[in-house]
């Protein structure tokens, strides 16, 4: 800078930049009336649409309310009585009320229905710790729920003779349930799982690691022994699957379908992306085959053709056939959802994991899959909802799910022709379940992404 000689060339001292303090955004001065005027009556066509829209909504709900509540009959002995009282202007609810037990439990023996309720209670208690903030063993609890609850529940539902192996498996389910309950309590109160809590409580703190591990295993074994004894004491009469029905059957089929389809879909999606040609070919074939065929066809195939391929004398239960068909069908769909999610994860994520020395399975399980599953939540839950509704198709292979049970009401001699009301009732059940799933997925999405937005 020497060539620019002379004092006049020296730059003036720099002025100091002080950023202005940020101001609050001006409050909306619109108010309710202003908002309505601006958004609903801003022009003549807009006002017209608003008025007509409100009228349609009003007319619809007025008619619905009049039918379902206003003119409805709540007490009657038969459909004849209803018709005599209000004709077709009001709903005839007594028929639905009388059939509620059947709509929920199918033809399951009345004195055995407690077994279904008990299984439902066990399911709720088993899953509840997943929402408790202080519980750490959520992965183990979740896995045990998906893998072992079906073992325990299937005995509650089916009952009957149990051999040694079957008893051992049922006891394993029960033991896992007991372990979940105990661990949820001890982790919430003391921050330790049941086995380690028992070790500490018994005063083995000073012993060697080896001794403590042995004692912890002994505690787990003790839980299993208790479960075995309990299962031995439990003797339930056999209830064949052909009397299962209603909401119970719908939940069994869709529950198993949901629990199976996600893991199976993940495996298939990874298989399809595999570099090993045989695995990739098999996965792709399976996915494309099951996606290209309607569920009804698959159900028919499994129902009528499977027995032809099996050796004489081997009989596969009809419900089991339907469940397998639903599982395979939904797994194929889920595989494509998962594959889409996997493709959305940038290659760099895998490269970073790989550069750290993680192998394929670690990188996939710890880095790629958690991110992919998170972005897939809306689609996954969408598939679950679809699956739940698709179970209505099992009626064509002679299973009495919730929807077909609702049609049975109108075939009852007392309530002959009563189809609309049970249908309405069942619609509400489907809506509540599906809407609940959808809302939960929104909530889950928001919670999972809360920490990660900018």
């Amino acid at each position: 800078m020497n060539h620019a000689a002379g004092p006049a060339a020296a730059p003036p001292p720099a002025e100091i930049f002080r950023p202005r303090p940020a101001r609050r955004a001006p409050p909306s001065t619109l108010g309710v009336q202003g908002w309505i005027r601006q958004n609903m009556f801003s022009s003549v066509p807009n006002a017209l649409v608003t008025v007509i829209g409100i009228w349609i909504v009003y007319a619809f709900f007025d008619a619905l309310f009049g039918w379902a509540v206003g003119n409805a009959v709540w007490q009657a002995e038969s459909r004849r009585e209803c018709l005599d009282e209000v004709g077709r202007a009001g709903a005839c609810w007594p028929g639905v009320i009388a059939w509620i037990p059947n709509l929920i439990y199918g033809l399951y023996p009345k004195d055995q229905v407690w077994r279904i309720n008990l299984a439902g209670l066990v399911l709720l208690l088993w899953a509840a710790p997943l929402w408790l903030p202080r519980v750490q063993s959520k992965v183990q609890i979740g896995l045990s729920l998906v893998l072992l609850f079906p073992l325990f529940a299937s005995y509650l539902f089916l009952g009957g003779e149990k051999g040694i192996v079957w008893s051992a498996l049922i006891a394993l389910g029960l033991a896992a349930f007991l372990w979940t309950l105990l661990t949820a309590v001890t982790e919430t109160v003391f921050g330790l799982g049941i086995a380690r809590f028992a070790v500490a409580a018994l005063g083995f703190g000073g012993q060697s690691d080896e001794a403590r591990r042995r004692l912890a295993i002994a505690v787990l074994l003790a839980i299993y022994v208790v479960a075995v004894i309990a299962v031995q004491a439990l003797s339930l009469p056999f209830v064949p699957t052909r009397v299962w029905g209603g909401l119970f059957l719908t939940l069994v089929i869709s529950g198993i379908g949901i629990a199976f389809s996600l893991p199976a879909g993940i495996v298939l999606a990874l298989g399809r992306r595999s570099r090993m040609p045989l695995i990739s070919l098999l996965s792709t074939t399976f996915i494309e085959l099951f996606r290209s065929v309607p569920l009804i066809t698959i159900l028919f195939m499994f129902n009528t053709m499977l027995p032809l391929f099996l050796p004489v004398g081997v009989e596969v239960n009809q419900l089991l056939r339907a469940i397998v068909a639903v599982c395979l069908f939904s797994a194929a769909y889920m595989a494509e959802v998962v594959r889409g999610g996997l493709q959305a994860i940038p290659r760099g994520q895998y490269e970073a994991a790989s550069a750290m020395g993680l192998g394929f399975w670690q990188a996939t399980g710890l880095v790629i899959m958690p991110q992919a599953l998170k972005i897939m939540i809306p689609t996954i839950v969408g598939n679950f909802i679809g699956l739940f509704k698709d179970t209505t198709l099992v009626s064509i292979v002679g299973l009495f799910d919730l929807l077909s049970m609702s049609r049975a009401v109108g075939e009852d001699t007392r309530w002959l022709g009563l189809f609309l009301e049970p249908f309405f009732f069942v619609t509400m059940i489907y809506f509540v379940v599906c809407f609940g799933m959808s809302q939960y997925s929104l909530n889950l999405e928001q919670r999972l992404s809360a920490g990660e937005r900018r």
Partner: protein
Amino acid sequence: MSEAVAGAPPIELIGLNKWFGAFHVLKDIDLRVQEGERIVVCGPSGSGKSTMIRCINQLESHQEGTIRIHGRSYGRDPRENDAIRREIGMVFQSFNLFPHLTVLENCTFALTWVRHMPKQEAEDLAMSFLTRVRIPEQAAKYPLQLSGGQQQRVAIARALCVRPRIMLFDEPTSSLDPEMINEVLDTMVELAESGMTMVVVTHEMGFARKVADRVIFMDQGEIVEEAPPEAFFGAPRYDRTRLFLSQVL
């Protein structure tokens, strides 16, 4: 199982050739990096510089030639290859932090899952490296809540946590805002001063001048010129190098 050979150079590339389909990306690359040496690789885009350093830790596989890391060469056994690449830390242009984990979890990730280090020990070690890159206060945040420069410093800390003996940088400042480039470069200068063996692909010629022991210029898949920075910037031999320098300086 080939063991690390004492005194063998950290990186040796001998007659390396690579094709993407029919496209010949790397042509007869020979390069030998000594212990503690800092190499800066520059060149136009598509010259193969990124591909070359990605071959060093086998993010890309090569078709011909040999790569030796401390005397051990990559082979068919994936576990052996993973063991070799654990010697090497890598920092990417797009950071590639794991967005579903906090900054601290990103740093302890490899320690926990690859080295099986106890949680407390891993966290202490990770914090010491986060302190070294001067962002210990961000440990509990998620990567996307940080600025680009901070994210890249976390990425450097994450790579350092597993105590690699070689660090590779693939255009570490190319996706940063101009004002954040220096905070990352400063971190890299400090790392260089600590004696780490480094191979850096970058267009930051100031960094090359200041830190590099050797500058390598690549074009069309070949190493055109390699020289110490004074010679490289002062008197480049090839016209291609002169043209490139006239564009970037």
